[in-house]
């Protein structure tokens, strides 16, 4: 009778057993977090770079029919020799100050092009692979709209594998692992991505010129191996725990039915 009581575990005892494991799980979690913090920034899944806008505009883009405005050269701090796996990107988002014409909507909305730092001829760079067009468009309709220099932020747009590879190649080729972003339109020329903006202030009764410097931010999203490992690991642990508890519970139920344990 005594030995039977020792062998039986009620569901409550199983739960206590699980709580005893909490310490071990917490230790495991700490280990994962330590690993997460020690890996490179890219492995965190989201990298960001903010730079002063360049303001250069080329009117010879697309055989002189469109325009290309240089947003800036972004540096994500990869250093001179980034590891290949740190240059895989799946999404991108950009924030910039821009003035667009009202017809820059839909297919006419200008696109973001990533190019090798120091590109002067974007037409040539797109042919040689030193630049890649993305599906990120800056539309006049994108809030806030209006006939002025306004700050627009896109949502995270997917990069195709081809675009991602080209972007990785551009960054890898640069000695400082930087990338240039341009705003291009095949047909529109009245697009301005200014480095600075001046405005006349008459509030004091006489004109005062005020200057504002503009910045742009490029965010890139990389796959998250660390997070995947953490969640997969925890998922497996949970499944294992559930399976063990279920097995024990089933075993106890059989024993109860067989009359080996007191109800």
């Amino acid at each position, binding site marked *: 009778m005594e030995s039977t009581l020792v062998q039986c575990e009620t569901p409550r005892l199983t739960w206590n057993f699980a709580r005893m494991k909490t310490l071990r799980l917490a230790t495991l979690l700490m280990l994962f977090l330590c690993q997460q913090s020690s890996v490179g920034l890219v492995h965190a899944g989201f990298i960001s770079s903010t730079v002063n806008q360049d303001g250069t505009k080329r009117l010879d883009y697309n055989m002189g029919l469109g325009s290309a405005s240089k947003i800036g050269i972004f540096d994500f701090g990869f250093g001179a020799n980034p590891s290949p796996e740190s240059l895989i990107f799946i999404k991108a988002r950009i924030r910039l100050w821009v003035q667009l014409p009202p017809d820059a909507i839909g297919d006419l909305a200008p696109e973001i092009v990533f190019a090798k730092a120091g590109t002067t001829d974007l037409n040539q760079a797109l042919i040689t692979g030193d630049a890649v067009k993305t599906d990120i468009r800056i539309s006049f309709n994108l809030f806030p709209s209006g006939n002025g220099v306004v700050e627009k932020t896109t949502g995270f747009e997917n990069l195709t594998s081809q675009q991602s590879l080209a972007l990785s190649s551009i960054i890898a080729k640069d000695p400082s692992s930087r990338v240039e972003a341009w705003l291009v339109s095949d047909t529109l020329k*009245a697009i301005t991505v200014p480095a600075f903006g001046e405005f006349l202030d008459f509030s004091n009764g006489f004109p005062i010129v005020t200057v504002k410097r503009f910045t742009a931010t490029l965010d890139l999203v990389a796959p998250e191996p660390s997070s995947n490992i953490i969640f997969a690991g925890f998922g497996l642990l949970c499944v294992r725990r559930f399976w063990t508890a279920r097995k024990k519970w089933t075993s106890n139920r059989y024993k109860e039915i067989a009359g080996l344990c007191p109800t």
Partner: protein
Amino acid sequence: MPHLIRSIAFLAIGILQLVSSPSVLKADIISDFKQQSGVSEDSGIRRAVYLGRLFNGVTGGPFRRMDSMYAIVTIAQATNVQLYAGDGNANFDSAFSQGKMFDSGIRITNRTQNGTEVIFAPGDPATTPPFKIDVPAGVGINDSLAANNRLDFWLVGDTNAGFTVPSTVAGNNANFFIRFDRSTAVPEPASVMLASAGLGFVVLRLRSRKKK
């Protein structure tokens, strides 16, 4: 002799009054400013951006013309963009073909091509004399003002030109400013008063001599 002293004193007071009276001195200078519209049109012949309407309710005055001017505009990536004034807040080409728009002669070019700048034309008013407007354009602009009691301003460039004219810059109004110095073919109020005072002085001197 007392008459002469009185006449001279009268003349001196009159001149002093004229010089110190801003309403008289400003009679031939008009200025105004407003937020830029930034609405653009491209007809395939030229690209015109509407700046806005100024001088609402201002009268043209008789026998006057715009003699010279200053303009301050907020603009980006402009090279030799023309400033037009006249009657018409939409469809520049139509207004131009009907002879309602006049080229002021002012040309706007940005100092640098990488920013949205406030451009003073022909230069800083503190150091630069005003831009001299051609007589036909000066007459036309003043006649338009006289006919409508307002003036519309446009910036005009080649078709598909890349210049941009904002209405706001980072949430702040992008304003433009125009000042006209007007000349007149008939005596101005100040000249009339001076001439009258001088004439009165001569008459008084003659009378005083007759009395002697």
